[in-house]
């Protein structure tokens, strides 16, 4: 297992947040507010509601910080989980507001959990260290062959393959915890 400084940094961040460090909350916001806000905007199709949800997610993370497990994957998963609930609440409020007709197509078009999971995965890829991020982005988003990636990044093909394999393990640890 290769050393993962990022995993240790996340575990420490969760630990600091749990013990009440407001700086840790600011750091968590810096790392994950774009993910949370993007999930909210795309689920709710309203910048104003997405701003409310993003604010609520980080405030809820603060008030509930005692329950956070200090593991590397806990914090992002937890934030995304809270965001899902708040988005569902906001959608439910819209229904209760008697705006059923207008709200239905949005719900049908953006199944919130899948969207959140998909975006969380892309976000993890985007925050991988280089050149691993570029290797995975070229392979999965641009469908480049191993040879193309090797040529464009000036790396041996074997190194590209190894980045893809280790990237997969890396993402699995970040997304699913250390199973």
């Amino acid at each position, binding site marked *: 297992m290769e050393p993962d400084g990022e995993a240790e940094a996340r575990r420490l961040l969760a630990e600091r947040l749990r013990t009440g460090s407001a700086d840790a909350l600011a750091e968590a916001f810096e790392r994950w507010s774009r993910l949370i806000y993007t999930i909210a905007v795309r689920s709710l199709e309203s910048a*104003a*509601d997405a*701003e409310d949800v993003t604010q609520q997610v980080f*405030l809820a993370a603060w*008030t509930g910080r005692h329950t956070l497990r200090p593991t590397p994957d806990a914090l992002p998963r937890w934030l995304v989980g809270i965001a899902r609930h708040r988005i569902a609440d906001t959608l439910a409020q819209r*229904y209760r507001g008697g705006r*059923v007709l207008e709200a239905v197509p949005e719900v049908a078009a953006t199944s919130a959990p899948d969207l959140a999971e998909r975006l969380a995965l892309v976000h993890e890829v985007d925050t991988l260290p280089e050149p691993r991020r570029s290797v995975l982005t070229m392979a999965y988003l641009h469908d480049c062959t191993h040879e193309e990636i090797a040529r464009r990044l000036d790396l041996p093909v074997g190194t590209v393959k190894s980045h893809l*394999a280790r990237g997969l393990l890396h*993402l699995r640890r970040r997304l699913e915890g250390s199973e």
Partner: protein
Amino acid sequence: MSVHPDPDVLAAVALGEHPAPGVERHLANCRSCATDLAALRRLAADLSAMEAAEWLEPPATVWAGIQRGLGTGPAPAPAVSPAAGRPRWLPLALAGAAAAGVLAGVLGARLWTPATEQAPAPQVMASTSLATLDDQRVLGEASLVRTPTGMELAVTTEPLDPGSGFLEVWLINTDGVRMVSVGVLADNTSGVFSVSEALLGQGYRIVDVSRELFDDQPTHSGDSLVRGELAV
């Protein structure tokens, strides 16, 4: 049983490389490695299906609002609640139409959806009070709500003491043996959890809130605080 292959080897196989004969034999016989390989293959498939995302930056007012919230006490309310009436998510022109009542209904139906796709408003399917196991003091309640996106279990309680751990919500089967975790009661008083209807049909109807320790033991601690059965 041969030695487990290196994780790098499993990942390469998940990405389509043909395993060496020894590895192939091992995978056929080792449940743990086969499970790992299946998970890595699922993740590789998710990666292949992913699309690039444009990350949106929340406006500075969001962080400012959080800081204000932190200053006001242990359970700050967000600056603006989404429950507050104004339909800000509607484009302005349509918000105007909404004020015109009937017109909005007609317009909405025409523009966005055929009538058959309309989902029902959230509907409470069952609810129960949550009471302590020893002296049956009612400390909260749980409701099963059908929403357009699926079933949700809403749990609210008086502030419960998580001790040095946290509070976890479970659905226990009426057989009294099987149970599943549905989530964590993050603020110790309320939570809304997605639950599958199939689960309820199989008898997972007893809502249980337990006190769990940060011990990485995923099973129920046995320390139940309150419980109630949904009459589904």
